[in-house]
């Protein structure tokens, strides 16, 4: 079987300022097929963002290999969309221009790009803010611009790093539904990093729990809830609660370890 994303025994080390190596991700193996939605959870600082950057091709693995679409990753694979954890909008472009950037860069004509962008700006609830610059937006609004910017490109592999963490509960639910709607019709693979277990379970086919730093894959939980899911209703179902418990306890242990090793860690 061919995987859309195939992380094969990948390890990533960083050079620290002291000149030593810091292992952020160790020996990770993770496959994602087309049309699959994988959520990744793990203690803060364990290596989730690093894992995404390996898939995106922004950082090469120190060991092991990463393939996308059957091709080993060199540079940025086609069809990858990556919503960063940190702000990465262009401050000198307006909301609309930021969202239209992707289509334009991919060669779409200006009007078409603008029309697409306008549609997406509205879908993330920012209609009326098209002409604002980034420094004039609130934290949550900036996140939504980033979301629109990523989704407007209709990526076939979607990497999302805590996309909804700065949103209020309701807006988050709306965005989650929007995301599921968009994704369900396609055969896109999604890798979705979050700290919100409910979110992870609600959205994903599979929840991957990572260990404390250096990140390894600890557990994988299949979520067999029926689709289409309604984000707000699903939470009260017994299956949901059962999976939640499992993931929670798996993660709790890691966080406890993270705290302990963190405290006794020598950099």
């Amino acid at each position: 079987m061919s995987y859309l994303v195939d992380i094969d025994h990948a390890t990533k080390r960083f050079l620290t300022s002291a000149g030593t190596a810091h292992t952020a991700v160790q020996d990770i193996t993770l496959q994602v097929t087309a049309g699959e939605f994988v959520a990744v959870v793990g203690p803060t600082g364990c290596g989730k963002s690093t894992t995404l950057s390996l898939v995106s091709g922004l950082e090469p693995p120190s060991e092991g290999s990463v393939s996308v679409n059957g091709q080993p990753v060199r540079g940025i694979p086609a069809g990858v969309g990556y919503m960063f954890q940190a702000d990465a909008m262009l401050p000198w472009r307006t909301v609309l221009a930021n969202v239209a950037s992707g289509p334009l860069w991919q060669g779409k004509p200006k009007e078409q790009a603008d029309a697409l962008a306008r549609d997406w700006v509205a879908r993330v609830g920012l209609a009326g803010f098209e002409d604002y610059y980034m420094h004039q937006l609130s934290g949550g609004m900036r996140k939504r611009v980033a979301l629109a910017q990523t989704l407007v490109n209709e990526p076939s592999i979607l990497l999302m790093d805590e996309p909804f963490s700065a949103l209020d509960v309701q807006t988050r639910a709306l965005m989650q539904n929007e995301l599921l709607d968009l994704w369900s019709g396609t055969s896109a693979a999604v890798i979705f990093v979050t700290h919100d277990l409910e979110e992870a379970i609600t959205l994903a086919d599979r929840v991957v729990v990572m260990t404390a730093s250096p990140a390894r894959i600890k557990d994988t939980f299949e979520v067999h809830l029926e689709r289409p899911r309604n984000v707000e209703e699903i939470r009260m179902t017994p299956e949901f609660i059962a999976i939640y418990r499992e993931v929670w306890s798996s993660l709790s242990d890691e966080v406890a370890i993270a705290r302990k090793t963190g405290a006794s860690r020598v950099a």
Partner: protein
Amino acid sequence: MLRDSRRTGRSAVAVRRRHKTLVYALRLLLLVLILGGWELSVSLWLDPFFYSKPSLIWDKLVIWFTDGTAQGSIWAQIGVTLQEAALGFILGSLVGVVLGILLGRARLLAEVVSPYIQALNAVPRIVLAALFVIWFGLGMESKIATAFVLVFFPVFFNAFQGAREVDRNLVNNARILGAGRAQVLWSIVVPSSTSWILASLHTAFGFALIGAIVGEYTGATRGLGLLISTAQGSFDAAGIYAGMLITTVLALLAEVVLGLAERRLLRWRPPAQASFVAAI
């Protein structure tokens, strides 16, 4: 900044207008102080032979603008120098920006050629001016070349550093969104480096004028440089200062133009980050 955003609408405009008036008043005061101090100290202690004084300079300017100069109408001199400086400025900043940005993004190339560029930057411009006469002749070309080399280096180094300072996140995000090398350069690197480039352009037009004048010093039939050099040769301190004054006014006018361009280019900024020229 706090002041600026305290009120919006009408009252903000009023505050800004009041601020502007204050600034102009203070500038005028400073001008009066400088000129008055100069006039007074030369009248009382210093030798006007070396230091001239504002009233004499004014007289000289009046003569130049009414009767013309030894080389003909003053406007012709200004025109020539301005043309040389403008061409040197445009070429120098263009080449500086393009090379700076390209090298800023091409690491190996930058490492290989950097010592050479550093070396070229240390070549004294007056020596170059003499060489340019050999290469380009006595016409405008040699002056433009001198202006060019004076403009090129500061612009190049700033554009280079600006291109290096670009936020990696922005570049990564653009690459993910499908931007190719050229698009990253054009959509991310160039706008990010804008404030670097503009900062260097603030000095650049002054340098271009200096270059043109140095070139004219080396040998010319017309131009402000010749005017100043003639004044030097005939002990006309007032003429020297008058020539410098005209140069200075030209540079300030160029700054105003640059300031308008800058305001347009950096419209997206939060208000506090206005730059030096915007202050003029």
